[in-house]
């Protein structure tokens, strides 16, 4: 198989699949269907697949679509600059989400794993069951486990679908949490800011709490994390 054909198969597969495909998933297309059956053509290596993806990415520069890597793999998407024309294909506008839903989602994304009571604590109001249900039905949020306290409340976290929806490769790509100036003479509050303002910064230390779990849940996030932190440190 030459590189041209390899590239074409990848392009066709990404356009035929209805969800992003990872390099591993692409590799399967080239494996013999039955383990006992050997093929004349050697299956392409991961490096060759990545190489082909990179060529496809470059070729898109002059096209109407682009090849984007998100959390669960690669997908083709319409270039954002063309959205004004393309959105006219649909009469209905994309739904807008309520502030209550977005705030709950943001808390789960930045503070996972988090219980409903902890969300309510920070927002200062009860979180309606409908919001949690909607987030779970959209497959943006799922139960990661239960906290071992009376009542065993569910611990919520975000999913790959959440990352894919917002075009993120990992949680490290989330916008940095705002720094809020602290009040002199309130040491506890300083301490709180330092440790909790940016859950993403925790990921660098292997034994720190919420971040390290997130890394294990989303291996892809791990790759991008260092870059993001570095970038935001410079910026």
């Amino acid at each position, binding site marked *: 198989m030459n590189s041209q054909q390899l590239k074409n198969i990848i392009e*066709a597969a990404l*356009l*035929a*699949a*209805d969800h992003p495909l990872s390099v591993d998933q692409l590799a399967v297309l080239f494996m013999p*269907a*039955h383990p006992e059956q050997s093929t004349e053509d050697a299956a392409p290596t991961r490096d060759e697949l990545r190489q082909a993806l990179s060529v496809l990415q470059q070729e898109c520069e002059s096209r109407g*679509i682009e090849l984007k890597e998100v959390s669960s793999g690669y*997908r*083709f*998407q*319409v270039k*954002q600059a063309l*959205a004004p024309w*393309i*959105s006219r294909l649909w009469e209905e*506008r*994309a739904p807008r*989400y309520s*502030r*209550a839903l*977005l*705030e709950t*989602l*943001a*808390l789960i*994304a*930045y503070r996972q794993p988090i219980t409903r009571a902890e969300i309510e604590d*920070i*927002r*200062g*109001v*009860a979180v309606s069951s409908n919001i949690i249900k909607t987030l779970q039905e959209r497959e943006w949020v799922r139960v990661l486990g239960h906290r071992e306290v009376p009542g065993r409340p569910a611990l919520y976290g975000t999913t790959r679908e959440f990352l*894919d*929806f*917002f*075009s*993120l490769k990992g949680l490290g790509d*989330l*916008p940095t*949490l*705002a720094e*809020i*100036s*602290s*009040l002199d*003479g*309130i040491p*506890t*509050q300083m301490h*709180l*800011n330092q440790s909790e*303002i940016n859950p993403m910064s925790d990921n660098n230390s292997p034994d720190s709490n919420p971040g390290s779990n997130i890394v294990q849940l989303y291996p892809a996030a791990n790759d991008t994390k260092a870059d993001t932190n570095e970038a935001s440190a410079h910026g």
Partner: protein
Amino acid sequence: MVNVENEVSAVPQDAAPPFALVRGEAFNTLPRDLYIPPDALEVFLETFEGPLDLLLYLIKRQNLEILDISVAEITRQYMVYIELMKGLQLELVAEYLVMAAMLAEIKSRMLLPRPPGVAEGEEGDPRAELIRRLQEYERYKRAATDVEALPQLGRDIFTVSAERPDTQVMRLAPQVSLHEVLLALKDVLTRAEMFSHHHVQREALSVRERMSNILSAVNADNFTEFTTLFTVEEGRQGVVVTLLAVLELIKESLLELIQTDTFSPIYVKVPRQSIQGVSDEFATT
């Protein structure tokens, strides 16, 4: 005053209902610092995501930093809104009242003279916890806005797809490990108490394998020379195994030996009826 009858029709008042009721008194004019169009007031009040959100709004409206808030002033304004919400019979969740109590407590602690000898900071700023909560909420309120601004599928990002080629869903045969097969055999043999009877032994197995091989090598139409069943390279043991296999096959009437004359070559052949059976079976299926 703008006509607001429709919004407040639930208020049990007759002609010319007041805008709202505050502590039982008719509330006919809006507070001076509330410059929201009255017909939008109810909608406006409902947009607050809770007491912290309302407080942040009040602070922002005064162009104040969270750190600079005057508890007395904020508490006064907060209470005005609470009364307005009550008057409009908005569903006033308990959290608003809890916050009102907290504000009142902070206010009273701010007014208390500091006990002599207690240095500033030891007692702490009574506003600290409130400020911490406001900052924490503000942080995630902004994060929610940031998340919403991310490119969204269907709003800013459109996925693309091409028509699939004509294809059938490939159904792969299940994977099986030898271990699974052996466990199954162990089960069935245990059930049948075969182990104790030594019905199946390793030696028998290679004879059986040879039986299978011989059966596939011979057929009913042609005679196969007996000697071709043996492979010299297998040595003495191989010859014995083949012989045992042939004898077993003959015993089971799966093979017949044919010798036309003494000392002439011996041939083997599948009995004619056996093949007949095959065609019968195909005919009936």
